[in-house]
């Protein structure tokens, strides 16, 4: 990762590229020690650990810095990469005596929840279903290979986003908010959801046709009404119960109960 020359002030303490890489890799495990009291606090302190080790050579200073990062923190696990990156940049300035330690904490508290909302909307509610539906559409052509299509589509976007967010966070510090505003996360979410809806429609149409051909109109009707019924009932029965019901029906069909 290259650092703009202007950002490296004389005598300023700086984290090495190897240290930054280790912080990024650890940030992938942000939720590994999730707990109700601090939520992602342990994961955050662990992720930023290698940077703090370089910035605070004195064991006492380092312990105090780690303890600061054990405060409550919660965000979307991917969007959090931007905050981890930004926190490293701010810690460099704290270690150099340019900023009070409190500024790192207020940066994390200010950005955590709104970035979580962006991430929930974009990754959980738009990218994940859309990638899954795109993969499902390929199933008739490549069979179980569609699982790989999903993993490839979803993870290439998600991992690239995490790398980019971490880099932007580190390079821009508090300017990360402007950078993310220009990335159009919020405005691309409805577009991605619309793509998902189109794919879901295509999938539904294909299921009805496949069930009805060559001459089984009753089966087509059955599949069509199941799809409409599921769409109407799903919000009321909840996803978990619907998945179990679908599993039972699938098993019963597989065992030729009816």
């Amino acid at each position, binding site marked *: 990762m290259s650092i703009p020359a202007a950002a490296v002030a004389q005598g300023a303490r700086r984290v090495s590229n190897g240290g930054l890489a280790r912080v990024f890799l650890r940030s992938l495990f942000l939720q590994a020690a999730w707990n109700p009291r601090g939520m992602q606090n342990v994961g955050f302190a662990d992720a930023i650990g290698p940077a703090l080790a370089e910035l605070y050579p004195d064991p006492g200073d380092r312990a105090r810095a780690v303890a600061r990062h054990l405060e409550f923190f919660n965000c979307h696990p991917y969007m959090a990469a931007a905050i981890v990156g930004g926190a490293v940049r701010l810690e460099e300035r704290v270690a150099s005596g340019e900023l009070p330690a409190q500024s790192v904490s*207020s*940066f994390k508290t*200010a950005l955590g929840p*709104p970035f979580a*909302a*962006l*991430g*929930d909307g974009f990754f959980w509610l738009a990218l994940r279903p859309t990638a899954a539906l795109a993969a499902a559409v390929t199933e008739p052509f490549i069979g179980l290979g569609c699982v790989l299509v999903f993993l490839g589509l979803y993870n290439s976007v998600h991992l690239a986003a995490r790398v980019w967010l971490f880099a932007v966070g580190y390079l821009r510090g508090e300017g990360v908010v402007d950078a*993310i505003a220009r990335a159009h996360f919020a405005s691309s979410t409805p577009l991605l959801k619309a793509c998902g809806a189109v794919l879901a429609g295509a999938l539904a149409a294909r299921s009805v046709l496949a069930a009805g051909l060559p001459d089984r109109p009753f089966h087509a009707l059955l599949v069509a009404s199941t799809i409409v019924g599921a769409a109407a009932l799903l919000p009321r029965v909840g996803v978990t119960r619907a998945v179990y019901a679908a599993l039972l029906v699938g098993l019963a069909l597989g065992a030729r109960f009816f």
Partner: protein
Amino acid sequence: MKSPSVALVRVDNRLVHGQVLEAWLPALDAQGILVADDEAAANVLARSAMALAIPPGVKFEVLRVKAAAEALKPGGKGPPASRTLVLLREVRDAEALHDAGVAIPQLNLGNVHFGVSRRQVAPSVFLDKDELAALERLAAQGTRVELRAVPTESPLALPDIKARFADV
């Protein structure tokens, strides 16, 4: 254009986040969000990050608690939109609004984080003795207090919250 009104007052340490935008806004059909918080009002970074996450078409305002009370009390300039969701960081801010003359028919407790003197009464809510007392004072003056993180959960009423507090 419907007249400005308050749909719900919610205590949430995280203020603007996923539960609020993805679950509460659609469930309440809210057209606006008013964040009443001194810290957020004074922090330009927090304000711009929140504005980034607010969906287009939803009116958004951040005010200090005192200024929010001025706006919301009878005769004030009112909330920014019809069916506005009012977000507060702490239970004490709800009492401050009430004491300044703002009517709070319903108060939702969403997320109150762990603190050294707080006890856990729900997965996402920790309260201390003073906060519970403040909620009881509000309830005694007609506020319906309920605890739930998202609208699809069944709400926990104040007597249940008290029972859980006593059990811990």
